[in-house]
């Protein structure tokens, strides 16, 4: 049960990453590998600030700001310097690796002492339930884990609602159109380049937010923690689409969340069954490959048979 709760919580935290990937991959049709750097960037900023005694809320917001900046740089490389989108991401991701080491001063910053959302959750758990463990449908679980899960859920719901609202404003619809049909929206007076920068900034801001929460949950920030995160996010978005569909904006956002949580659960189960953790990234990449190729392949087969 503890394992299940943990998987749910991490799934929710990483669903913010999935939302970020949804913006870059589905709205702008770019596999933005900046994510691998910006999730660590968020974690690094947040961890360092918390160690220095900053309020966790402020530290998390600062991480979001850092992600915005990183994404904006990728956007500027794409929009102003006309670099290939993939290359822009690779350049920023690579530079972020050095930046992150500078921010942290070493390759790993533990969060054993400072106040984080986790310590807050522990306090809340004690205040609400009065004891360290609660009985949930016959399972004894730690109050801290339960409150952490609820906090993560609250955070994700808030971000989802904000994102849903944003994408239905004049600004947000123009941003979606910039990705959907740049020629059309340019003819309607929108500076497409600017919206691309804004969109990628927002995307990486969410990713860094996810990194900040992840660092607080697992209790450390690490220079290597971002490796393969873009693939993870893609997997979440793709699972969400195949399960929930993408007929409307609301469904697509909900799908990204559900996909992330489900994927994390699947991974937890696979690890429990004895999947070597070293193989995790390989399996994730193979999964994304299969999810992208199988539908086409099945369609072609279907056509040949009829």
């Amino acid at each position, binding site marked *: 049960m503890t394992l299940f709760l943990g998987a749910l919580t991490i799934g929710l935290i990483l669903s913010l990453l999935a939302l970020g990937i949804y913006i870059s991959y589905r709205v702008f049709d770019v596999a933005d590998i900046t994510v691998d750097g910006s999730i660590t960037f968020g974690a690094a900023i947040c961890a360092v600030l918390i160690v220095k005694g900053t309020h966790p809320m402020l530290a998390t917001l600062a991480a979001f700001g850092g992600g915005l900046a990183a994404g904006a740089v990728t956007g500027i490389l794409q929009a102003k310097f006309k670099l290939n989108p993939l290359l822009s991401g690779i350049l920023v991701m690579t530079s972020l690796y050095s930046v992150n080491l500078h921010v942290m001063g070493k390759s790993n910053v533990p969060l054993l002492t400072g106040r984080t959302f986790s310590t807050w959750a522990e306090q809340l758990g004690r205040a609400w339930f009065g004891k360290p463990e609660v009985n949930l449908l016959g399972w004894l679980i730690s109050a801290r884990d339960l409150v952490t899960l609820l906090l993560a859920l609250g955070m994700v719901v808030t971000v989802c609602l904000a994102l849903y609202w944003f994408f239905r404003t*004049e600004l947000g619809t123009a941003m979606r*159109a910039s990705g959907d049909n740049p020629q059309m929206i340019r003819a309607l007076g929108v500076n497409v380049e600017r919206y691309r920068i804004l969109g990628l900034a927002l995307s990486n801001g969410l990713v860094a937010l996810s990194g900040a929460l992840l660092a607080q949950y697992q209790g450390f920030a690490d220079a290597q923690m971002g490796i393969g995160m873009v693939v993870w996010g893609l997997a979440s978005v793709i699972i969400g689409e195949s399960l929930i569909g993408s007929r409307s904006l609301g469904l697509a956002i909900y799908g990204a969340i559900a996909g992330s949580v489900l994927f994390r659960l699947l991974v937890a189960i696979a690890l429990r069954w004895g999947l070597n953790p070293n193989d995790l990234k390989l399996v994730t990449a193979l999964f994304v490959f299969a999810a992208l190729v199988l539908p086409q392949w099945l369609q072609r087969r279907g056509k040949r048979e009829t």
Partner: protein
Amino acid sequence: MLTVSNLRKTFNVGTVNEVRALRGVSLELPEGAFLVILGGNGSGKSTLLNAVAGSFRLDAGEIHLAGQKVTRWPEHRRARLIGRVFQNPFTGTAPTMSIAENLALAARRGQRRKLGWALPRNLMDELRDRVSQLKMSLEDRLDNAIGTLSGGQRQALTLLMATWLKPALLLLDEHTAALDPKSADLVLRVTEEIITRHRLTTLMVTHSMQQAANLGDRIVIMHKGAVAYRFTGADKQRLGANDLLARFEDLRRREMLDETAAALLRETYL
């Protein structure tokens, strides 16, 4: 209203693909005028339209529109003054977004986009009203993704979008060429209706002689990046599709003469 003077543009300069697309084109379009630009493939008619829209930087020449010099304005800035319908029905609309959202984007053409709802109730009412005027019963499907519509329906909506806020200039780039005949007729009917109702200054590119003869109050025939013939007023009204065809035949013969003459010269002197 629109003054275009001595536009020049060469694409792919210095390569084997060098194309002199515009070789000094000048036009004058008073307010409320409807100019049809006719020409064969590669005559530069679409390039001229794109030059006015601001799709690329000109080599030389100036464009004035609604009293402002717009020569150096980027495309999205000119959109404040220009409504545009493209040849490809897929170019004018955002396919994954709903009909209502597409129209709402057009309702703020050239204006600042803020954090207000894209689809407030009063706008929805107006959308339903103006879409129903197309008589395509699309007003009940405003929430459908625009990508699910036919080319003709999309083109009619693009036309509505381009003219939602009255543009100083309407650009139509062979906007019926990619449609089946029935849809093309329909879109053409809507086009005439909207242009007449709002007295729009219009620049339309076509390669259909029939359309050129029936529409507009003036014609320009382009050939090899330059204006070959101009007709206005009574001259234009007298012109039928056959007369236009005859002019094209003229141009073709003149060109062949040029080529044979060049061959003759080559033979003589080389």
